[in-house]
């Protein structure tokens, strides 16, 4: 099997999996309980929190565990918008993950004003547009750090600079960036940052939100005192421990492994462009999370290519996994100006830690043939 859909989800690193299994058996205590089996779990959670904080250059007290990257995004946006009822404007971009776009739509239904910043053909947001969009009523700007479909890295530092002049808070959805590009919250200057474990070889069902110290925010999930009164509910303890472990592992592996993955991605990109005619690469050459490759195979239906690849045990995607079920064209691809028929011919290949040279070779030997065959059938 060649798995090239690491932006949808990643395989769990075996060491993470082992740690989770150990934890599930040995540590069932509720961290809110005061006796030893509860306190031990609390200690392990604190260690995991410290690890995540370190990776972001943050303080432990600024890290809040959630149930997913989506929950982190919802928490950040609703939490800020509800904490500033006197400000009713929210600014985001047109290529955000549905977790941000749909949250914005719901806010709009409840009477908030939403502005979507447009992007250029590479997916870079329009900073001039952003400057003009900010008003004294703007409570929050949410721009993703890197896009899940294109890999485009957004100019978060510049966004923060613009926002700070007008005293507006900034959230970034770093779900696709964390573990792949530097995510130091102080260098970026963001107030809130979302991340998710299952995109960094950790388990599904656990995410985190960084909240800068002193930021006024209301909880999304109310109840007990967990997570400093900001995210109620008995903690997904095994998930938290696993997230900590996953972060530790990618930090230990460091740039060396990322460079290896980038090299594979470059080879795959070059190979596809050389071997397949009429292919368009979407996204920028530079300022991209290199492991993300988006190609349009003009005149074709991406679904047909995807199925043909799947029959060879090569797994890729046609858009983000979250919109896979729907018939709509990707909002990201239409935002960068692709016509619907071109958007529908687009495949995303996203590489990860467990890919190797053979995987790339296999795709390069299978894909051109598949494309040729399919184009013949449709008479193109």
């Amino acid at each position, binding site marked *: 099997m060649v798995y090239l859909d690491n932006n949808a*989800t990643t395989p769990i690193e075996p060491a993470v999996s082992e740690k989770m299994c150990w934890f599930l058996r040995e540590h*069932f205590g509720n961290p809110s309980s*005061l006796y030893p089996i509860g306190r031990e779990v609390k200690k392990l959670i604190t260690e995991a929190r410290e690890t995540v904080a370190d990776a972001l250059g943050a303080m432990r007290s600024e890290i809040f565990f959630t149930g997913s990257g989506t*929950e982190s995004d919802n928490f950040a946006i609703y939490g800020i918008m509800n904490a500033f009822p006197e400000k009713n404007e929210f600014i985001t971009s047109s290529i955000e993950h549905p977790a941000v776009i749909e949250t914005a739509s719901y806010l709009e239904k*409840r009477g908030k004003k939403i502005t979507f910043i447009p992007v250029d053909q590479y997916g870079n947001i329009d900073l001039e547009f952003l400057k003009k969009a900010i008003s004294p009523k703007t409570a929050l700007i949410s721009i993703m750090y890197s896009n899940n479909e294109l890999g485009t890295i957004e100019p978060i530092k510049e966004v923060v600079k613009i926002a700070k002049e007008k005293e507006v808070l900034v959230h970034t959805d770093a779900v696709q960036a964390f573990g792949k590009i530097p995510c130091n919250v102080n260098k970026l200057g963001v107030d809130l940052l979302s991340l998710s474990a299952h995109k960094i070889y950790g*388990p599904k*069902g656990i995410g985190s939100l960084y909240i800068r110290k002193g930021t006024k925010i209301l909880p*999304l999930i109310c109840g007990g005192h967990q997570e400093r009164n900001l995210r109620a509910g008995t903690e997904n303890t095994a998930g938290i421990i696993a997230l900590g472990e996953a972060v530790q592992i990618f930090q230990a592996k460091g740039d060396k492994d990322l460079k290896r993955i980038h090299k594979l991605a470059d080879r795959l990109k070059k190979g596809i462009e050389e071997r397949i005619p009429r292919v368009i690469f979407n996204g920028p050459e530079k300022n991209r999370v290199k492991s993300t490759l988006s190609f349009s195979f003009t005149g074709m239906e991406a679904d047909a290519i*995807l199925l043909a690849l799947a029959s060879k045990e090569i797994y890729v995607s046609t858009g983000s996994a979250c*919109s896979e079920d729907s018939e709509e064209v990707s909002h990201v691809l239409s935002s960068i100006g692709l016509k619907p028929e071109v958007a529908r011919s687009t495949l995303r290949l996203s590489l990860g830690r467990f890919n190797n040279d053979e995987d790339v070779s296999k795709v390069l030997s299978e894909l051109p043939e598949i494309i040729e065959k399919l184009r013949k059938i449709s008479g193109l």
Partner: protein
Amino acid sequence: MDNLVYLDHNATTPVDERVIKVMLPYFGKKYGNPSSIYKLANESDKAKEEAREKVAKLLHANSNEIVFTGSGTESDNYAVKGAAFANRKKGNRIITSSIEHHAVLNSCKWLEKQGFKVTYLGVDKHGLVNLDELRDAITDKTILISIMHANNEVGTIEPVKEIAEISRQNGILFHTDAVQTVGKLPIGVDDLSVDLLSLSGHKFYGPKGVGALYIRKGTRIDSLLHGGHHESNRRAGTENIPGIVGLGKAAEIAAKEFSEEGIKVRKLRDRLENGLIKKIDDVFINGHPDKRLPGTLNICIKYIEGEGMLLHLDHNGIAASSGSACTSASLQASHVLISMGLSHEVAHGSLRFSLGRNNTEQDIDKVIEVLPPIVEKLREMSPIKKR
């Protein structure tokens, strides 16, 4: 920890080995995202739908009425806030009780800030809500009633069937927080006639980090988490597949075993209750004498502090609690006991023992042996000891 006598099952339960076993593959090779469309992903999707059927079966519901969440707390937030916002045009009044879990109480407080009006029904000395008081509280603006199935601290089982009947007659949605009863009591959503019901995996030998909300078909409710198309557009976010699979297995086991287990646990609980009453003076039981969860014993031991007793029990390898786990990190007196009419002083002297699947007679006898001398010692030092 092998010798630990664990009597805090209302706080959390150990994960059943049978549950861990079915979760393991989803930590390893079966990592697909169920929203993707290739085979690896279909496996995850199929496992998720099988788990949904198992949970549905436990509740006698249809599987498309089950939505997976990240916790019982999230289910409560989703139910209460989601029903409130979706029905706001109809009215802005909500009725709940003063002894709900904080997940419901704090959701209601949050809604008050958003312009909703909430009535908090009182309870009698056993912790039962008064149905007449409920009837009186209903107005034509009432859109939701949320009353827990059984209380986590004292175990009192509320008359949810009657409450559901009253809700139905008045065209009001009814939610019940059944976190403490699912897997312990027989539950049929049609029999109870509820519209919304919350449950949590880790209270019945499943993992932490997964819960579910039953939503009766046709119920008007807004989502709490927005984003992708997961859970039929009702709860966004990539699903916690191993957690969901674990919850499904826990539900399957519970469906088969809860009734026998209830008999066993009740017998042990009664043994503990009788043993302690016999050996310690000036104690009384909090909660309803009969309408009570089979494994819950909340006992008030006068003149001393629950925290002190817990510490000593802890030294003897016995884990119990002085309130709900969610408030045990704080030193406030239990809002449940205060609502039942206990003074702060007396409420602070309460202990909760909650029994479970793996407890034995030896466990119980150890508590009956260890606790009386602890009480005696503490009472000797107590500034408020009896005179």
